[in-house]
């Protein structure tokens, strides 16, 4: 049974009243959901609480799930809205085009710079991972979000476009911006 069919099967069983089937869904997606929420909110306790809330919200909305879409993209859409609500309540305008992105202005340069310094190659892989985790906290949430989905949760660009309801080109551009912004942060903090 494919992962997609398996999800549909679990959902049908849950709707019919077999709540245990939903536990299988939780176990299947808890890791990727926590990876996403954790890095979006930054605090472990809060991330665990939010992960539970997102699963509860998903359970309550199961009747609205449309099986032509992948369950994982629907789940991440709920999680993304939940995180946006959280930022809004904190009165942080995090998901509009952020100050930093606009003021630093333009997209990262497309051409390879002539005097490109090899900042990243100075670090060991383990060091680099720590630096990237720190840099992630400093980039705008809307870029952080797509970066996590693409490079940590390993979603395809098409899946991210479906979650965010954005054109594929915009998603690719945002992921590219995220990576180059991380590189810029590493360069600034070398």
């Amino acid at each position, binding site marked *: 049974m494919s992962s997609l069919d398996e999800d549909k099967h679990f959902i049908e069983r849950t709707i019919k009243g077999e709540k245990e089937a939903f536990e299988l869904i939780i176990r299947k997606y808890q890791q990727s959901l926590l990876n996403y929420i954790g890095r979006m909110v930054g605090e472990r306790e809060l991330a*665990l609480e939010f992960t539970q809330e997102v699963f*509860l919200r998903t359970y309550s*909305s199961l009747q609205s799930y449309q099986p032509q879409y992948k369950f994982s993209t629907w789940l991440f859409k709920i999680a993304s809205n939940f995180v946006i609500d959280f930022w809004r309540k904190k009165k942080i305008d995090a998901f509009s085009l952020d100050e930093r992105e606009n003021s630093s202005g333009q997209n990262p340069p497309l*051409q*390879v710079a002539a005097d490109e310094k090899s900042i990243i*190659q100075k670090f060991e892989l383990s060091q*680099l991972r720590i630096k990237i985790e720190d840099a992630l906290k400093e980039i705008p949430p809307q870029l952080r979000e797509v970066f996590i989905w693409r*490079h940590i949760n390993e979603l395809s660009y098409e899946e991210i476009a479906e979650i965010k309801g954005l054109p594929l080109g915009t998603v690719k551009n945002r992921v*590219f911006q995220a990576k180059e912004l991380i590189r810029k942060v590493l360069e600034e903090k070398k």
Partner: protein
Amino acid sequence: MKCLNVEQIYLYLEKELSSAENNEIEQHLASCPKCKNAFEERKLLLQAAESLPLWEVPAELAKKVMARIDSAKILPSAWMKAAAAALASVSVTLLVIFLATGQNLSTLLLGVNNNLWNYIRNFLPILIKLFKLASLLFGVIRHFIGYLLKTFSWLAELASPQVQLTISIIVIILVAILIYGIKRKILVGEKT
């Protein structure tokens, strides 16, 4: 081949390009130390990003959610809510009419039924024509929106947000001028 751009390097690393594009890039990398250096650096960045440690999931997380789910309910979907609201509205309307006119419920329902049948008989042909017209219109609009979205997605891939915004504003102004011009033509036609 001219030097690579950074986005191309990432897409190559993520295996998002065609085999012809991959070949071109590989050939260029073999002969250009500047691009090769940029490539090695982005490769390392992606390698590190894709091997970031996972957040540890507590063993009891699923059980905790399940304990809370025991008291939660699956809410009806939006159309179920709409159907329930419609049924409730009809019931309340019937009750109000019954209370206001004093007719008994069966006479009232019979009257409503007759009236409804008359309406259906009179308006059915018009409704069918309207439906045909609406589906035709819907098809045209759907195609139009499809092309519009394709254009936007194509634009988003090619141009920066600033250029996209400029093009969008120009198109909106042109459409507004076009609509205004058509309106003027019609008004002039009416006067003559």
